Every structure is written in C-alpha cells, then in structure tokens.
C-alpha cells in the first residue's frame, strides 16, 4: 500500500458514498410522492362511494314519498333526473383538476338541493312525516350527508399533504421530472354551505 493508492481509494470512497446517499434520497422522495398520490386516489374513491350511497338511497326515498305525497310529482321527477345526471359525471382520480372537480361538485349539489326541496315539500303531509320507514330513511340520508362531508374533508387533507410534498424544495425538482401535478380541493359551494336540513 503506497501513499498514492490509499489517498486515491479514500477519494473514490467519498464519491461512492455521496452517490449512494443521493440515490437513496431520490428513491425515498419519489416513493413518498407515489404513496401520497395513491392516498389522494383512495380518498377520492371514498368520497365517490359516499355520494354513491346517497344516490342509492334515492329510489327508496322516491318510492316511499310517492305512496303518500300525491301532488309532488314535479319534485320527485327533479330528484330522479338530478341523480341520473350526476351519475354521468366521472372524475379520473389520477387527474383531479379544479375544473373537473367543480363539475362533479356542481352535479352532486344539484342532487342535494333536489332532495332538500323534496323533504321540504313533505312537511305538508303529516302521515308521511310520522311514518316510521320514512323517519328511518331520513336518518339514513342525514347519516350519508355526514359521511359525505367527512370524506370531503379527508380528501382535502390528503390532497393538501400531497401538494405540500410535491411543491417543497428540493422535492419539487423530482416531481417535475416525473410529472406529479397539483391536485384540486373541494371548495365550499356558493350559497349552499350546509347539507339539506333534516330536522323536525
């Protein structure tokens, strides 16, 4: 072992270790971005499934109301139509842009307001209001609305975590290289701040 070899080896050693460290950082950073992205997709799936749950309750609601509320055909048809329209709007979870999200949200809020109007009109039918089936349906609707709002909030949390991850330095360089884009948030809708009131 002469001096030259040893010094050369030690410099090579430093370079190799630095390279390993850099590679390791890159790998961890990329993998955490992937994980965060999948979290957002999963949250989105949860949001969609809660909206779907509400959508599934509607036929039951319409059938129950129809039996009692003979003069509410228009409101009933509105609900059914709004629901049909909403099922046609889909969002690809890997590409959640503000426009698509707003479109989805608008369609769902139409359903929500249609249901709200129907429930208001039911006030005029005391027999229906007292009906046990109807009361339980209302409880289910209310529960679904709660679940929707919880999942929307959790989606926003997941989207925020992802956005923060890809926008921070130096991870944003990696994010640009691999095409990780910002995700949109659920915004509060203008005018409708609360779920349809389901109280007596």
């Amino acid at each position, binding site marked *: *072992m*002469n*001096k030259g070899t*040893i*010094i050369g*080896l*030690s*410099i090579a*050693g*430093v370079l190799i*270790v*630095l390279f*390993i*460290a850099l590679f*390791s950082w890159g790998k*961890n950073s990329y993998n955490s971005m992937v994980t965060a992205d999948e979290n957002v997709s999963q949250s989105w799936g*949860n949001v969609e499934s809660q909206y779907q749950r509400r959508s599934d309750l509607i036929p039951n609601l319409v059938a129950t109301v129809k039996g009692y509320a003979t003069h509410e055909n228009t409101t009933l048809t509105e609900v059914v139509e709004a629901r049909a329209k909403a099922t046609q709007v889909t969002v690809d979870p890997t590409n959640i842009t503000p426009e698509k999200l707003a479109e989805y949200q608008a369609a769902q809020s139409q359903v929500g307001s249609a249901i709200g109007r129907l429930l208001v009109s039911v006030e005029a039918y005391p027999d229906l209001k007292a009906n046990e089936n109807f*009361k*339980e349906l209302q*409880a*289910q609707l*209310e*529960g*679904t609305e*709660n*679940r*929707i*709002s*919880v*999942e929307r909030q959790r989606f926003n949390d997941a989207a925020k975590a992802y956005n923060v991850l890809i926008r921070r330095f130096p991870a944003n360089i990696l994010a640009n290289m691999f095409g990780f884009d910002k995700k949109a948030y659920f915004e509060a809708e203008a005018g409708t701040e*609360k779920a349809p009131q389901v*109280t*007596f």
Partner: protein
Amino acid sequence: MKAAFKKEILLVFVFLAIVNALQAKIWTVSTVPNTRLSDARVCTSDPDDLIDPASQAEIDRLLLNAQTQLTAEVFVVALQSTGDVDLKSFATELFNTWGIGKDEKDNGLLILLVLDQKKVTMETGYGLEGVLPDAICYRIISNVIVPLMREGQIGPGMLAGVQAVLKVLSDPAAAEEIYADPVNQQKANWEQTKALLFNILIVYLLLTFVILFLSMNSLSRKVKSVVSMEPYDAYKVLNTSVTSYRVLAFLFPLTMLPFFLYYKKKSNGFRKKPRICPQCGKPLMLMSEKQEDAYLNAGQQTEEMVGSMDYDAWVCMDCGYRSFLSYTKSFTRYQSCPKCHFKTYAQTSDRIVSVPTPISTGQGVHVYTCVNCDYEALKYYTIPMIIILPSNRGGRGGGFGGGGFGGGSFGGGSSGGGGATGGW
C-alpha cells in the same frame, strides 16, 4: 369618600362572580374532559352532572364489562351546552380526536347528549357501522332514549340507551365483526428505525473515508519532516505522533488498517536504516534476533521474552563498537521492577484474604512478581461492605383516580360520520 363606596364595589364583584358561575360552560372538543385518561375503567364523561350517580355507576359498569368481553369501546358524554356548533360534526370530531375504539377494528361508539339543544347523537366507528347502522341508531335514540328524556329522566334515559346498544352488540352473530385481537404495531416503528440506521451508516462511511484521507496526509508530511533526523530519533518521533491515531483505530478499525500498514512500513524503514560506525567509519551490522541474544544481558533477554521491550544490536565487525537501541512495545502490562529495574514486573495473581460481610469490610491482595529477579510484592486493598437493598414495594401506581387503577387511553379507532341524531 372611598371608604363609603367600598361595600358597594364588593357587592358588585360578588354579584358578577355568582352570575359567571351560574352560566353554563360552553364545551369545545378540546375542553371536554377525557375522563378515560385518568382512570381506565371510566366510560362516561359528565362534567355538568346531568346524569344521576346511580345511573352513571351502572352505565360505567355495563360498558366496562362490554369492553372487557367484546373489546368494543363505548363511551357516554353528557354536556349542558356546546354553543352553536353542529352537533353531529362535534361528535365526529370528538370521536376522532379521542380515538375511541380499537385501532385494528375501529369498534368504537360515542353517545353524546347536549342538553340545551335537546338532542342525543350517536357516532359509530367504521367497524360498528355494519352492526349499528344509522337506522338502528336512530331507532334506539327515538324509541328508547327520547321518551325518557321528555320526562326529564336524563340518567335513566342514557342508561336505557346503553342497554339497548349493548343488546345489539352482544348478539353472538356480531361478535366476530366487533372483536379485536391485540396485534403488535411494531412495523411502523421498525421502518423509522431502519431509516435512521441507514442515515447513521452513510455518515459513518463518509467519516471513515475522510478520516483515512486526512490521517494519511498528515502522516506522510510527518515522515517527510523527520527523514533528516537520526533514524532512531525519527522512529521515536513517528511513534509518539501515531499514538493519538490509535484511538481512531478503535472506532474505525477497517479504515485505519491501511494507515497503520503504511506507518509500519515507514517506521521499519527508519529502524533498519543502515548506520555508520562512529569509531572507524565502516557500516554497522544489525544482529538478528538470535544473534543479538549473545550481546544482551540476562535482564534484557527476559524483557524480550515477556514482550515488553525489543532491542536492536548494531555491531561493527572491524572495531568491535556496539550500540543497543531499545524499542518499547506500546501495550504491555509489565512495569519497571523496583529491584532490578527491568521491565519484567507485573501482577500475577489476586487473592481474597478476608471476605466482606454486611458489618465489616474485606481485604484482598494483588501479588506482583518480577520475572527476571523473582522479587515479589504484596499490595493490599479493601473490599467494601456488602449492602443489602430494601426489597422493592412494587405494586400498581396508586395515586390516580380512586382505587389504585392507573390511567388509560382509547385504542385509536376512527369514524366517518356514521350514526344518527334524535331530539325532543
């Protein structure tokens, strides 16, 4: 003047204090007392004393039993007022902040009464949504709890609700869905440890190479600086300068290996460097280990034998000039003998003269012998008395909420807004 108004001012303060105390406190998610934290057996939080003690005790007993048997965590909270906050979102937030229910199964249930809104709400953890769907929750609230609430029977109302809930949960068909097996959650911790260890490894590797580079540089510079000195002095200087690097060798053994190989090569070069006889100018001859024994005295030979010193004998064949150079070994247990002054003196044995007892010290003796001259010395030392520690009291940490049970916490479950609300 001031003395005349003193009484009135005092009365005003007392009045304000009374009014303040009478106003119901508005609870928020962060201020609702989590009574589970101080006592693991508690299943209710009733800071405004809305539930009568008898009902509360029975609720606690039933729910603790349920938790032990079913592992489901049911908790009852009764509050006078939460202000204007939406009741259901309050319940959802409280549930998730406290983490009611076991983590793996999310089998928690929160029953919340807010008296000024005249409503009771139930928040089910994800795992209980199948067994306690919204409709059933609503049924229990409106058919069991609300009628009693209407009559002002708050305690019995909540108790009846709890009994109805437990009836559903104890159904054997539901058991598998609810029951949580204790599972170790060490995976996440291990991942963190792995990441930390990896970082430490990277830093260690970097350091090893950097240290090797720096120490090689300084050593080669040192060698250059002593090359002009007398070989024996050069050797000594090099040797002392390297002692500090021996510490590094302990921490970074693999990297200091080439360093010490290089040092050995250079230092041996100095040691074996050809010298000239000062008397006649002819080159001196270095004796081999076997040959030099003839020139060394008995003491020096013993030193070489025990390995504490190494001698080099340089002899001039022509004029008979001799030079002996001594090289000390770095790590040796032999010291200089008080009698013959050769480095052949060390501790050979250690005996106990008298055994220590709890009431008296003991005595031991180190026996030192010189290999060369057989001189022996005894060094006595005291052994401390035996101390008997008082036996450990052990037992539970009693100072917490009445009865010696420790504090507890919820299992970390979560909910998604499931459940129902009902009012009167």
